[in-house]
């Protein structure tokens, strides 16, 4: 029975004029978005690979100099993206792609792609995820708002119900028919996207690509299902198709346009991030006055006394390592606590904002889907954070390796006066710092971070189905 109803619904939808133009528009937009996304991603990855290669060479070929000076010369980390970034570029347009890693200083990621585009590009570029998140629900609504309300208005619902079929069969049949029509539009585009990825020779960043694609498909299907059942519920409840359309389009605008922007603003108000303008100055002042109030020079004095007692020497010149280098490394470690506190506050604020937004997903199903989509594509803030953490670990190791080398190799310079206390190192020494490699979070980590969003999405689907069941149960057969 359900199949009979589904087949008739499908035939009717496909024959309707609405279907032709909405489907054509949708396919056109999706394919354009995927092609544009692919083009953008390929060129980004080419730039990233070239820049990372160049900076690695630059580090090695920086010319012979003191290792600590080399640490000042520094190194750059350029963030690579996984292949799914072509489908959903998430926040990557607005987050930095590059971290300058140098001695004594932890830096923010800079050079966001948005800063590089013309004003028109800032309205947000086409990407497949956006089309599916914003326009797929509209497609479902346009094809489905008449499902019950239209049959009630035309009177066919009485004819159908006089045949002796249950309201439940009618609901499932309509859901299946409408779902097939929507899939017929969306699925080919998704397959084309998967083929794009399969054919690519771009480096794979992040593991579990097949699982990611499968989970993305499930999440987007659930999202389409939410709108499908909400559309059927509203159509069963509404007095006329016109009312159904108005209610549904209103909800669509709320969840797909208003909430994503508003949720970010609300979460920022609830969990304020430290002010960017004074961030660096605050951190510098904190470093000068010392992490817990003891200034660095006093700490270093204490450290010197401690070292001299430990090695039983009365002059730093007699220490079995190059004192200047060890002292610099000690300063680095003292500063590190300040960096960790200040950058940690930013990270904590962002995490708070993110958790708050996840909860707002109970009001708008677009929010959890958007987060899941970015997470699986490897383009969300969690992964940006991982990139910055990797860069910071690299920076710490780089400085530590250079200072450590200096402390051992220049021990003979301990007694030499400062004007000539200089050890010159070459490429072989710089090579003890391996090139920067970003390690994206494991899929399991991503899933654990997003469990709330999966739960909220599932909640919406169940709620939508329940509303549809209630809707057809109480559905009037007469128009009034």
């Amino acid at each position, binding site marked *: 029975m359900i199949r009979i109803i589904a087949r*008739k619904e499908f035939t009717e939808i496909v024959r309707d004029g609405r279907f032709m133009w909405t489907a054509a528009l949708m396919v056109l937009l999706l394919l354009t978005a995927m092609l544009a996304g692919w083009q953008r991603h390929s060129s980004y990855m080419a730039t990233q690979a070239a820049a990372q290669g160049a900076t690695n060479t630059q580090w090695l070929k920086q010319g012979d100099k003191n290792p600590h000076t080399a640490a000042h010369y520094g190194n750059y980390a350029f963030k690579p993206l996984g292949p799914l970034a072509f489908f959903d570029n998430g926040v990557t347009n607005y987050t930095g792609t590059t971290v300058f890693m140098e001695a004594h200083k932890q830096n923010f990621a800079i050079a966001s792609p948005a800063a590089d585009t013309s004003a028109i590009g800032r309205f947000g570029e086409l990407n497949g995820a956006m089309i599916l998140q914003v326009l797929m629900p509209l497609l479902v609504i346009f094809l489905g708002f008449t499902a019950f309300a239209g049959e009630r208005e035309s009177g066919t619902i009485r004819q159908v119900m*006089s045949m*002796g079929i249950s309201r439940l069969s009618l609901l499932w049949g309509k859901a299946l028919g409408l779902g097939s029509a929507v899939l017929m539009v969306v699925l080919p585009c998704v397959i084309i996207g998967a083929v794009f990825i399969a054919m690519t020779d771009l480096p794979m960043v992040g593991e579990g690509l097949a699982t990611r694609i499968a989970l993305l498909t499930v999440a987007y299907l659930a999202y389409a299902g939410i709108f499908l059942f909400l559309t059927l519920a509203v159509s069963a409840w509404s007095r006329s198709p016109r009312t159904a359309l108005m209610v549904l389009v209103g909800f669509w605008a709320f969840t797909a346009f208003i909430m994503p922007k508003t949720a970010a603003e609300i979460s920022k108000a609830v969990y304020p991030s430290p002010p960017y303008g004074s961030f660096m100055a605050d951190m510098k002042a904190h470093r000068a006055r010392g992490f817990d109030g003891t200034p660095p020079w006093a700490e270093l004095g204490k450290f010197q006394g401690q070292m001299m007692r430990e090695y039983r020497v009365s002059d730093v010149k007699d220490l079995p390592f190059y004192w200047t280098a060890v002292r610099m490394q000690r300063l680095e470690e003292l500063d590190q606590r300040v960096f960790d506190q200040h950058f940690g506050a930013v990270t904590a604020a962002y995490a708070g904002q993110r958790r708050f937004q996840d909860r707002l997903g109970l009001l708008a199903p677009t929010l959890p889907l958007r987060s899941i989509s970015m997470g699986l594509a490897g383009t969300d803030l969690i992964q940006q954070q991982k990139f910055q953490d990797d860069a910071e670990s690299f920076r710490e190791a780089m400085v530590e390796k250079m200072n450590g080398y200096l402390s051992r190799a220049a021990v003979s310079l301990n007694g030499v006066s400062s004007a000539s206390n200089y050890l010159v190192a070459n490429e072989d020494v710089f090579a003890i710092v391996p090139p920067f490699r970003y390690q994206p979070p494991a899929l399991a980590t991503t899933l654990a971070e997003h469990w709330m969003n999966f739960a909220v999405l599932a909640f919406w689907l169940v709620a939508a189905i329940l509303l549809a069941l209630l809707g057809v149960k109480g559905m009037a057969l007469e128009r009034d």
Partner: protein
Amino acid sequence: MLEAIDLRKSYGDHAALEGLNLKVKAGDIYCLLGANGAGKTTTINLFLNFIEPTSGTAMVNGIDVTQSPLETKRYLAYIPEQVMLYGNLTGIENLEYFARLGGHAEYSAADYQSFLDRVGLQANAAHLRVRTYSKGMRQKVGVAIALAKQAKALLLDEPTSGLDPKASNEFSALLLQLRNDGAAILMATHDLFRAKETGNRIGIMKSGRLVQELSTDEVSHADVERIYLEHMH
């Protein structure tokens, strides 16, 4: 086949139907006459279980419709004033869809065509979309649906109003065919002439009550009109 026992339906203080007792046997064409609001459509809606009775019982084939609403509908066919079909499907597709909904998946394409031929739909119309059909053509598809459903009882709600005399006449001929096949037919109508011509029994309703029943072979056309008008005053 169709039986109403003390059937009542009220909306708040207003009683749409006040204790209707009615029996339509196989081979009967029972015509319900009465002004708008007399309770004719309410009666049909109660047999279809589209509305719940306030009290009393509506039975189809001896089964209470509120107890087994899906089973009783298997025996019923419903033809409203306007048979509503899907405009984007052809006549034959509409017929096939409703036949399958009614639980008859056994028909071939030739069977569907022969149903449409039997009700007199023009041969070339079966494969046209129903959007292009006239009202008379839709009513014929409605009867074809009833035929395909092999309904034992028909509920007709002013099925001929708005049809031209020729189409109305063709429709009545179809009803007689169905009756001869053993169907029980309950028809709400305003057409006194058709009621006397086609029906074998007539019930006159007023303000939710069945005020008089007649056998058409005992009265003339003039009698029917006279009795009807007497009750309307």
